[in-house]
C-alpha cells in the first residue's frame, strides 16, 4: 500500500540578484514509499535529496509536480492546512545540535507537539516518559537541557520527538552522518527497531551508501536533481546498474586495506574506461 507518492516533483530556488533566474534543483523526480517501508534516498551534495525531504515536509514549495500522502494531495497546502498533517509526517534532522532548541528542556521539547495537538499536560508527561523509554534514554532526562547530552543522545531525543505523535512517515535527513562511528550503528539499530515495532515508514536521506544499505528496503539514487536509479536495496547498493551509482559505490572507502586496494583498482579502471 503506497503511503507517499511523489510525482514529477520540481523545485526551484530564487537566487540573489534582481533579475537572476531561479535555479531548479529537482527536475521532475518521482518516487513512492509504501507503508512500513524504508526508502533510502542517496546522492551527493547538490543532488537535491534533502530538498525532496523538505518538500514532503512542506518546508519548501514545489514549483511543479505532486506529492500525495495517503491519497491526498499535500504539495499546495496552506500553513493552516499543513498543520493538520503534523500527526502523520514527522522529521529527524541531520544535526543533533541545532535541531533541538538549546533553551528548552528535553521534556518541553517532547511535549510541545503533544500540547499543540491538544494533549493535556498530565497525559503529555506520561507520554514523554514512554517516549524516552522507547528511545533508550533515562526518564530523568526530561528535566535536562540538550547541551547536557552527547550527539547520539540528542539524536535519540529528536527521534523521540518525531515519534511523539505516532506518525505514519518520518523523513530522516542524514540522521546519523554527524554521529561518531560507534554511535552511528546504535542509532541505526534504534531506527530499525522502532520501525519493526510501529510500522512507521521512513524516507531516509543519506549520502552514505553503507548506511542506506543497512536500513533501506528500497533505494533511490539521485544525481543533480534527477533520479538515476531505483530498486531493491541489495541490488542498488551491491550491484548497481547505473554508472553513477557504480562510481558512488566504488568511491566510498572500505575499512579493510586489502579490499580497499582492490576497490581502488576497480575504480581506476572504471575511470579510465569512462573517461575515454
Amino acid at each position: 500500500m503506497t503511503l507517499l507518492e511523489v510525482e514529477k516533483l520540481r523545485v526551484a530556488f530564487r537566487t540573489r540578484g534582481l533579475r537572476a533566474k531561479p535555479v531548479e534543483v529537482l527536475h521532475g523526480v518521482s518516487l513512492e514509499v509504501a507503508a512500513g517501508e524504508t526508502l533510502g534516498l542517496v546522492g551527493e551534495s547538490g543532488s537535491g535529496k534533502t530538498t525532496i525531504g523538505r518538500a514532503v515536509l512542506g518546508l519548501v514549495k514545489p514549483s511543479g509536480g505532486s506529492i500525495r500522502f495517503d491519497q491526498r494531495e499535500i504539495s499546495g497546502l496552506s500553513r493552516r492546512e499543513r498543520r493538520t498533517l503534523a500527526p502523520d509526517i514527522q522529521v529527524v534532522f541531520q544535526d543533533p545540535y541545532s535541531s533541538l532548541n538549546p533553551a528548552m528542556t528535553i521534556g518541553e521539547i517532547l511535549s510541545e507537539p503533544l500540547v499543540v495537538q491538544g494533549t493535556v499536560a498530565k497525559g503529555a508527561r506520561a507520554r514523554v516518559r514512554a517516549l524516552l523509554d522507547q528511545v533508550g534514554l533515562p526518564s530523568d532526562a526530561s528535566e535536562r537541557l540538550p547541551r547536557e547530552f552527547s550527539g547520539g543522545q540528542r539524536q535519540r531525543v529528536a527521534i523521540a520527538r518525531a515519534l511523539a505523535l505516532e506518525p505514519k512517515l518520518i523523513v530522516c535527513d542524514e540522521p546519523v552522518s554527524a554521529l561518531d562511528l560507534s554511535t552511528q550503528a546504535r542509532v541505526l539499530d534504534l531506527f530499525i527497531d522502532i520501525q519493526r515495532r510501529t510500522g512507521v515508514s521512513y524516507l531516509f536521506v543519506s549520502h552514505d551508501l553503507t548506511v542506506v544499505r543497512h536500513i533501506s528496503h528500497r533505494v533511490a539514487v539521485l544525481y543533480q536533481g534527477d533520479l538515476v536509479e531505483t530498486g531493491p536495496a541489495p541490488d542498488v547498493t551491491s550491484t548497481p546498474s547505473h554508472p553513477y551509482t557504480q562510481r558512488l559505490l566504488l568511491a566510498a572507502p572500505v575499512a579493510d586495506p586489502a579490499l580497499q586496494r582492490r576497490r581502488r583498482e576497480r575504480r581506476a579502471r572504471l575511470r579510465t574506461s569512462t573517461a575515454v
Partner: protein
Amino acid sequence: MSTDRDHGSTTAEAASTGAVAAGHAVPRMPMWQRVLRDPQAVITLGTLIVIMLLGALAPFITPYGPNQTDLHAVNAPAGTPGYPLGADESGRDILTRLLHSINTATVSALIGAATALVVGATAGLVGGYFGTRTRAVTEWMFNLVMTFPGVLLLIVLMPVTGGDYRWTMLIFGVLLSPGIYRIVRNLVVGVKNELYVDAARVSGLTDLRILGRHVFFVVRGPIIIATAFMAGSAISVQSGLAFLGVGSREIPSFGAMISSGFRNLYIAPTQFLWPSLLLGLITTSLVLLGNALRDVVEGSKPAPAKVGAGQRAEVVADAEDAAAGTPALLDIHDLAISYPDPAGKQREVVRGLSLRIERGQTVGLVGESGSGKTQTAFATLGVLPDEAVITRGSIRFEGRELIGLTDAQLRPLRGKAIAYVPQEPMSNLDPSYQVGTQLVEDVRWALGLDGPEAKRRVLALLERCGITDPERTFRAYPHEISGGMAQRVLVAGAVASRPKLLIADEPTTALDVTVQAEILDLLRDLQAELGMAILLVTHNFGVVADICDHVAVMQAGRIVEVGEVARLFAEPRHEYTRMLLGSILDEKTVRADPPLVASEEGIRP
C-alpha cells in the same frame, strides 16, 4: 554591505573540546543569576539603581523644589549652608536639580529605549520571520529611518514637538529603532533557518507560537544588551538638546545644568562639574553594563593575543635528547594540551601523547570527536588557539624542538618543510583575494620565486592537482569555486614546497565521497612523487585503509594503539580499537526483513 561570515569555523572537534563554545558548557543557570555573578554588571547596575533611587527620592532628600529659587543664593558656592553643592545662576539648589535631572534622564532613557524596542523588535520579528516580501517593506522603511541624521532631525522637527523632551525622545526612539530592527531581524533570519524551528513547524506549531517560544528566546539577550546602550544614547542626546536650549528650561536636566554651568564657568566652575560628572557616571555605567551583559549573555569575547608570539607552552625545553642515531622526522613525546573550562580551570584535552613519524610514512591518526587528534595536529604546526596551553611534552621535527618557538622562528619550517591541508576548504581561503594571489604568496615564500615565475609555477601546480582550467581558477575568488576545487587549491599550496611532512586534518570529511576519492588519489600520487610523510587526521577507517601505512588510534587524549594498517585491522589489540572496528557498518549486511505490511490501522506498540 554584506557582513555574512562563513561559519565553517574550526573543526567540529576543536569546537567541542575547546572552551570556545561557551553556550554549551556554561552550567545551567538563568540569565539573571549569571548577570548577578558578574562583578562589572553588579557594580554598574548597582550604581544605576542607587542613582535612580536618589532621583526618585529627591523630594525627601532635599527641602527644595527643582525650580525653587532664592535670589540671595544666586551662584552660592558649594558648602553654603542649605546648599551643599551650591546654587545656580537663578539661585536654585544644585543638589536638588541634580536629583531631579536624574528623573528626567530616567524618563528619557525609558521613552527612548522603549520606543526603539517596541518599534524595532516588532518589525524585526515580523520582517525576519515572514517572507522576503514583508522583509523588503520593513527593510525599506528602516533604511528610510536610517537616512536621517538623528540630532539634525530632532532639531528640524522642533516646531512639531514643541521641544517637549518626551516627544523628542519618542522620535529619537524611532530613530534608534533600526539598530534593534537589524539585530532582531538578523537573529530571526538566523533562527528561522535553525532546524529546531523547522521541527517546530513540522510539529504543527503556529507561526505566532514559534515566534513567541523559539524565536523570542534567542532575541532576548541581545535586546537587553542593546537596551543598555540605547538608554545611554537617549540620555546623551536629551542632554545635548537641553544644552542647546531645545525645550523647556523648567525641566531640570543635565544638559540644561551643563549649559547654565557653562555660562558661569569662570565664576563658579563647579556648577559645570556636578552635572558633567553625574551624566558621565550614568552613561559610563550604562556602557559598561552593556558590555558586561554582552559578556554574560554571549560569552566573553576572546581577548586578543600577540600575533606571531607562538603558542603558549609551560614546558621548559629539556636538553638535547640523548637518543642516538638519526632522529625521526617527527617525534612527539608525552604531549599534553589543556584548555580552560568556563570556570577557568585547565582541562587537558591531550594527555601525554607520543607518536613517531618516519620519513615517507603515511600515518593515520584516528579517533572519535573530542579525542584530541586535531589539537595534536595544531600543536605540531604551532597554531593552537591562544587559550590552549601545552603543559608538557616535546615535539621534535628532525630532532629540533618545536615547542616554545615563535611564529618567526617557525617560519623557516612552515610552508617549506611542514605543510598543512585543513578540513574545511572554503573557510581556509581568504575570501578577499583571488585564489591565484594566495597561491603566489605561498610559492614565493616556499620557493623564493619572483612574480611571473611564481605565477607559472602556481598554474603548473594547479594543473598537477587536477584542476582542468588553471587560468580560470587562478583568477577566481574562493566563493566562486566548489568545495572539491578549493581543497585541490589548498593541497596545491601545501605541496608547493615539496614538504617533508604534510599534516592533513580530515582533508576529505567535508567533501562528497566521489570527490573524497579523488583527493585521496591526489594525495597518494603526490606522496609517491615527493616522498613526503603524511600525518592524516581522520575519523574514517575507510580513509585510513585507503591511504595509510601506519595508524594510531586515539581515545580521550591518548594514543591507545599504534601499528601497521594491515596488522591493526586484522588483529586489533586494544579493546577500544576493537570496539571501533566492530562499529563499522560492514559492506555485506543488507536490510533483510521485509516491510511490516500494516493492517489498515497500522501497528502500534
